[in-house]
């Protein structure tokens, strides 16, 4: 179990009624809930139902969540259970002709459960660190990491920098990112956890 201080603080503040802490929890883990819904191949409407149920359960569960650091795992487990419920209702409504077998999808997902949670935590840590970079670094990196990336000539015009300095700037910004204290601490825990696991 890794004790992410960011998550622990968010849970504590949300528990005390801090709405912005709750918003941060949702921003942070909505991609996890969404990714699991996609894994179960739920429609957008069904995914919305699952999401609503997961967040409402979490609101109820917050005061009694004994291990705030276990939040991502709790969210993943609850989402999976809700996805199964919705998938079962759909199968029932369609009779038995549905080709998708929710139990098989769940079994398949079981293998990836830990990975999905780890990826979500890593993504959140990366996004948080990115948001703490200087604005110009954020702008530059955003243009370079979108798919497809913005052309160097275009970046040069938009940011008013020479094409030749885009590469070195990218390198500097990435270096700042990896030396962000929170991200560095996260990566260190992440590495230790995977070595132990």
């Amino acid at each position, binding site marked *: 179990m890794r004790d992410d201080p960011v998550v622990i603080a968010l849970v504590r503040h949300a528990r005390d009624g801090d709405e912005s802490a709750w918003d941060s929890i*949702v921003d942070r883990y*909505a991609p996890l809930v*969404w*990714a699991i819904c996609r894994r179960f191949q739920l429609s957008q409407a069904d995914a919305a139902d699952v999401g609503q*149920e997961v967040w409402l359960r979490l*609101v109820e569960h917050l005061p009694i969540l004994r291990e705030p650091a276990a939040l991502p795992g709790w969210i993943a487990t609850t989402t999976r259970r809700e996805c199964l419920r919705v998938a079962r209702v759909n199968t029932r409504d369609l009779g038995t002709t549905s080709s998708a077998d929710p139990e098989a999808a769940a079994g398949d997902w079981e293998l990836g459960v830990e990975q999905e949670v780890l990826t979500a935590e*890593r993504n959140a840590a990366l*996004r948080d660190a990115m948001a703490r970079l200087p604005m110009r670094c954020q702008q530059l990196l955003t243009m370079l990491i*979108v798919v497809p990336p913005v052309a160097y000539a275009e970046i040069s015009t938009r940011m008013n920098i020479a094409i030749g300095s885009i590469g070195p700037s990218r390198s500097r910004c990435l270096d700042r990112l990896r030396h962000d204290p929170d991200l560095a601490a996260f990566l260190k825990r992440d590495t230790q956890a995977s070595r132990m696991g």
Partner: protein
Amino acid sequence: MTENWWTDDDRLALALSEAVQAADDVPREFIAAGKAAFTWHTIDAELAALTYDSAIDHGQALVDLRSEPAQLRLLTFASLSVTIELEIADDSVLGQVVPPQRGDIEARDATTVLAAAVADEAGCFVLRPRPPGPFRLLVQFEGQTSVLTGWITV
């Protein structure tokens, strides 16, 4: 592996790209609904869990009887102090609180009250029309206690 992935610029940039993409993939309304759920934290109610659902317990029978008209779905929710029995019809929700008592009933989604009714001294109430989407019932008894059911998807 002697080197960590994040020490390499290209791998770090790729991970960052995936992280941003994963967040961008989530529909905005999906996130908004999650944030709106926080309003529930102020509602101090005892939770009533689903203990019976005719659609699940007799799922196969329901499929077989699909052509029969006027099917009723029966649900039971139970908390420590009360049981709430529901009959979900096409146009209404009939309910009874056991043990019988008066109370105010609200059908709510994440943010709004969809329908309201009053339970009489026999604990009976009718919600009409039936809320279209997922909802849960908040029952406020005269003695101040409140009970909140799990979600009902019709």
